[in-house]
């Protein structure tokens, strides 16, 4: 009662004091602490990045990598400019590799599985080692050393050597290196035609004519970054046009989208067209490298594949074939690539043989196929070896199975019964970092370091030795594989056989032994090692001519080349089925990276989750709509996936991306939309690969609709000419013309046109030039941008609501009349006359003196007027405070603000890099040099499509490019005067 007698004034006073105190304590920052080092490390300055050279192990391509370490943890990776494979660039998968280290679904300690409940329980390293040693001891006691099998992905160098030594100690030679993309047919064909069973180095850049039979070399094929780099050089416009490139396959893939023509054929038509082309060329007597006898013999082998036959089977017209042959005959170094593993081509072996034969017809081609630098992929086993392994497991011949990174349970056909076979193995030990389908069957989980935490070496192809070094300390209680094996070996055979302390010593010794400098001084060894550490490995000069020239052997060509035309399908309306590896997930091993799940598929623009592509005409016939959940049945199984209508698929064909439909691979990868290999019949093709295409599947609608989450508004431009193109002829005639560009400089100001006064720029006007003729649409830039700028991953539900946060989109527009694609990287255009700036009530978008449109986050109040007024729709609003599943937040770039709910954000041209470059220039008392730095997107572009620089400097690369006749500004008629200037794509027709 008493308190009620307080006057209002007294109450307010009291409340004020209490409130003020509470407020002060609430905001108290005394909880902020500064944690010093105990002892300062030599090479880390807090607040400064340290870069370490290492080798990417996200796929067998083995690109060189520079990893950025900030305050002890790795936050970003970039290509190593010195490395001969990728010369400074990375693909989307490489850019996302840091999310492997910080993946929330990583095993954080060793586990053992309780037999009955099948549950994992934590164990200790010593307990786990005891279990393994007990199993090994009993195996050795019974003299069953051969019952030990070590299954890994492709591994070379010291790691392979240690595994070999360990197995030798056990008395086994069972090291199986399994890669789902093993190119069995390609290797077999090369053996038969060239006499070398290997994947050579294809020097696309030195060829002058390229045909790809389903080889998606810009996405996944063998070494995609290397090929993308070479392809960009190959396609540079010359005097008479761009070097012609034809793609023959059942799907308009990213690679096909970059060809002059995509020649659509059903999957079983690929080999028919290849054989038809060979027939035609022999018929025209165009085989200067063959002698008459062999020509006749070959002609006899392909006699059935006349143009009429090809047209009847595949629908490829005689004229098209004729033009192909004519272009081939004009070329001095024509190169023909074949997919060679049967994903999209049931006749993969025939196609690969024809590709090799076509490459043998002209002597010049031998200069562009380099067998002295064979890919290490050549050492991976054929799928039939895996079949043998499964059979051995079935019959109880395998007692102990070690698995490192390989995931056969996901990749092998269900019919082989890997899951059953594995139950007959007494002990299954998984060394993998993540729980996956195979790991679920393991009794013991001994997680190894991820490659970014490990020492190691990897030889992507002969002559290139990449070194791996830890670029961050181990995140969790994991161990290097080598250390474990050395410890096992020592316990079994004593220190005599395994004298090294740890794997690092093994690596050092092997590098010192292989030191080619031949100088006895220990200092030399040290410096060679240090040089390798600094550079990321050892390799010769990159542009040596091929040391091993294959001889287009006339005698070999005839051997066992008896191509049979595929059986004509009896019911022409049967649906055939194929699957394809994707640029995001390769074979599915990268599916647990949220960046890659959120990255829209370059062609379909679908994020998060699987789909099945079907031609709209076929879909119409079957009354299937976009998003209908389909059940696809083959004779061996059935899977579900939502339909995506896509005209870039041959008719009566279904296509499905590989890598989706994991049943156990962490929270990001797991999806109910199936794994296409589960449909495979389990049969093997002639080269020992899995038969992956199916000539007959049935499709039923489940009645459920599950729309694939797409980020494209429309497949078409609707006549808006956003992504423009010119023909090569136009390109030649307009050379020297003034471009359609209003420069975003003071010179671009005109009283008639402009309402606001012009901006002044002191020294720099940052600007970007996007060459649409070079852009291949791979999406590496998008992931690089995510990683550099702390862009949030929002997940499927919110992408569906249009809330994805990508600052950079690679927009994909189809042409309305024919299956051609234009890619357009779209980011904030940093307009000089920016529509966003004039509508913000609080001046959050602000025009800097260097031409950049700044978004000041702490000013932004979230009215979203700017986004409404932006004609490019590149502004992204934080509808929620997006979270990072721990420990993914460790990947965040400390130089960039993490935005919260209610704030607008967008591309900043990587302002943190601009500031860093200016700081460096200032400390050296000079201006920033052209090309000294690049934003994350331009840094990683494998095709050099993005160029960044100072437009105010007339000698800069951007100023030069922006002066080209091809230059234009997207929606330039709005007088926004964008600072991003595009160069029109150059198209050419040869058919």
């Amino acid at each position, binding site marked *: 009662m*008493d*308190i009620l*007698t*307080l006057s209002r004034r*007294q109450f307010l*006073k*009291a409340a004020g*004091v*209490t409130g003020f*105190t509470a407020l*002060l*304590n609430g905001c*108290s*920052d*005394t909880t*902020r*602490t*500064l*944690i*010093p*080092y*105990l*002892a*300062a490390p030599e090479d880390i*300055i*807090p*607040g*400064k990045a340290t870069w370490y050279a290492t080798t990417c192990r996200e796929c067998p391509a083995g690109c060189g990598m520079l990893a950025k370490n900030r305050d002890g943890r790795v936050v970003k990776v970039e290509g190593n400019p010195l490395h001969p494979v990728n010369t400074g660039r990375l693909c989307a998968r490489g850019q996302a590799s840091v999310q492997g280290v910080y993946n929330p679904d990583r095993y954080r300690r060793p586990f053992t599985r309780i037999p009955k409940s099948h549950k994992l329980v934590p164990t200790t390293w010593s307990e786990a080692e005891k279990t393994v040693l007990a199993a090994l001891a009993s195996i050795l006691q019974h003299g069953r050393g051969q019952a030990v099998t070590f299954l890994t992905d492709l591994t070379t160098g010291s790691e392979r050597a240690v595994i070999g030594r360990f197995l030798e100690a056990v008395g086994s030679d069972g090291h199986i290196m399994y890669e789902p993309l093993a190119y069995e047919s390609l290797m077999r064909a090369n053996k038969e035609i060239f006499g070398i069973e290997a994947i050579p180095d294809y020097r696309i850049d030195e060829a002058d004519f390229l045909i790809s039979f389903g080889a998606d070399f810009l996405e996944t094929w063998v070494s995609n970054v290397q090929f993308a780099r070479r392809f960009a050089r190959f396609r540079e416009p010359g005097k008479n046009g761009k070097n012609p490139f034809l793609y023959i396959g059942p799907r308009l893939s990213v690679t096909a989208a970059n060809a002059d023509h995509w020649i659509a054929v059903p999957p079983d038509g690929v080999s028919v067209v290849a054989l038809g082309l060979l027939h035609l060329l022999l018929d025209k007597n165009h085989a200067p490298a063959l002698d008459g006898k062999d020509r006749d013999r070959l002609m006899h082998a392909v006699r059935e594949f006349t143009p009429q036959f090809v047209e009847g089977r595949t629908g490829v017209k005689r004229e098209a074939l004729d033009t192909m042959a004519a272009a081939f005959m004009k070329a001095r170094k024509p190169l023909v690539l074949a997919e060679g593993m049967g994903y999209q081509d049931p006749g993969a072996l025939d196609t690969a043989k024809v590709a090799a034969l076509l490459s043998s017809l002209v002597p010049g081609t031998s200069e562009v196929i380099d067998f002295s630098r064979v890919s290490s992929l050549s050492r991976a086993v054929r799928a039939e070896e895996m079949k043998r392994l499964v059979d051995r497991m079935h019959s109880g011949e395998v007692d102990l199975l070690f698995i490192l990174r390989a995931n056969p349970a996901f990749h092998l056909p269900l019919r082989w019964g890997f899951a059953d076979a594995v139950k007959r193995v007494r002990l299954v030990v998984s060394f993998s970092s993540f729980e996956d389908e195979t790991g679920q069957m393991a009794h013991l989980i001994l997680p190894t370091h991820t490659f970014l935490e490990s020492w190691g070496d990897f030889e992507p192809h002969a002559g290139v030795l990449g070194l791996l070094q830890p670029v961050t300390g181990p995140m969790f209680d994991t161990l290097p594989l080598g250390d474990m094996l050395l410890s096992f070996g020592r316990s079994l055979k004593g220190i005599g056989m395994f004298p090294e302390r740890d794997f690092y010593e093994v690596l050092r010794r092997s590098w010192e032994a292989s030191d080619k400098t031949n100088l006895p001084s220990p200092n030399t060894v040290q410096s060679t090692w240090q040089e390798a550490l600094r550079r990321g490995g050892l390799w010769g000069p990159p542009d040596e001519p091929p040391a091993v020239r294959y001889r287009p052997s006339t005698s070999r060509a005839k051997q066992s080349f008896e191509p049979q035309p595929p059986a004509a399908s009896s019911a022409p309306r049967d649906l055939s089925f194929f699957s394809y590896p994707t640029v995001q997930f390769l074979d599915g091993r990268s599916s647990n990276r949220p960046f890659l799940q959120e990255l829209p598929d370059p062609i379909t623009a679908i994020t998060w989750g699987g789909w099945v592509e079907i031609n709209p005409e076929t879909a119409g016939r079957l009354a299937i709509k976009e998003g209908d959940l389909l059940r696809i049945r083959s004779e061996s199984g059935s899977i579900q996936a939502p339909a995506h209508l896509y005209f870039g698929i041959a008719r009566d064909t279904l296509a499905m991306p590989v890598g989706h439909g994991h049943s156990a691979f962490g929270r990001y990868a797991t999806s109910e939309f199936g794994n296409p290999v589960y449909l495979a019949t389990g049969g093997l093709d002639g080269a020992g690969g899995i038969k992956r295409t199916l000539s007959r599947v049935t499709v039923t609608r489940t009645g459920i609709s599950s729309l694939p989450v797409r980020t494209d508004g429309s497949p078409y431009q609707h006549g808006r000419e956003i992504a423009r193109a010119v023909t090569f002829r136009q390109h030649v005639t307009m050379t020297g013309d003034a471009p359609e560009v209003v420069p975003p400089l003071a010179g671009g100001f005109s009283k008639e046109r402009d309402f606001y006064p012009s901006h002044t720029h002191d020294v720099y006007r940052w600007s970007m030039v996007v060459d649409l003729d070079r852009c291949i649409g791979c999406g590496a830039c998008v992931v690089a941008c995510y990683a550099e700028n702390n862009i949030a991953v929002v997940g499927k539900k919110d992408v569906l609501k249009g809330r994805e946060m990508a600052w950079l989109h690679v927009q994909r527009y189809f042409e309305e009349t024919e299956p051609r694609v234009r890619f357009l990287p779209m980011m904030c255009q940093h307009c000089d006359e920016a529509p966003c700036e004039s509508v913000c009530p609080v001046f959050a978008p*602000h025009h*800097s*003196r*260097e031409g*950049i449109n*700044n978004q*000041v*986050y*702490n000013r932004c109040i979230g009215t979203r007027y700017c986004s409404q007024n932006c004609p490019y729709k590149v502004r992204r609003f934080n509808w929620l405070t997006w979270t990072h599943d721990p420990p993914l937040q460790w990947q965040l770039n400390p*130089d*960039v*603000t*993490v935005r919260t709910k209610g704030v607008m954000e967008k591309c*900043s041209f990587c*302002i*943190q890099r*601009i*500031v860093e470059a*200016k*700081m460096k220039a*200032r*400390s050296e008392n000079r201006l920033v040099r052209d090309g000294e730095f690049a934003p994350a997107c331009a840094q990683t572009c494998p095709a050099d499509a993005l160029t960044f620089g100072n437009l105010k400097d007339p000698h800069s690369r951007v100023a030069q490019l922006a002066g080209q006749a091809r230059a234009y500004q997207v929606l330039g008629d709005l007088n926004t005067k964008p600072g991003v200037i595009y160069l029109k794509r150059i198209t050419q027709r040869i058919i």
Partner: protein
Amino acid sequence: MTGHAETSVTTSDKPAVWRGRVWLMVVAVIFAAMFFLYYYEDIRIGPPQPVSFSHRVHAGVKEINCRFCHSNVERSAHAGLPEVEKCFFCHKYIIPKYPEMQKEERFFNTNTPVPWVRIFWVPDFVFFNHIPHIKWAGFDCSRCHGDVKTMDRLEYTKFQMNFCITCHRENRAQVDCWLACHR
């Protein structure tokens, strides 16, 4: 009757109001005391640190250069803190038995970094860099951090935007949002 009733009301009322006021004053005094003792102390002389390190003794009396401990100030955005080991470069020989030194030694011996309380900071969306201020502009540390040579504990300085922008204007430094501080 009425008068009697009135007096009885007033006599019984006055002490009630008075009691209320006393109660209020007690509450206010308690709050004021708590505020003074617990919070204002932080403002007045700075928050207590896990080891009572005195800037006055080190920087003032002993005249040790700031850069000896904050050695990254010209190399990195952050001036840096001395590693725990560094204290013992001197204190292995100087007052090693002093209780606070033994406390510090315990941190070192148990591999525990000292959780120093942070005194100076800017919000997360501000990217301050020491290099331009110290190396290029040649400012003395005390320009922003105050006269640390006279302080045992360090006092908080509120770095509001006004603090920065005033000085940036005076010195014709970068005032562009992104090119200067925000990203």
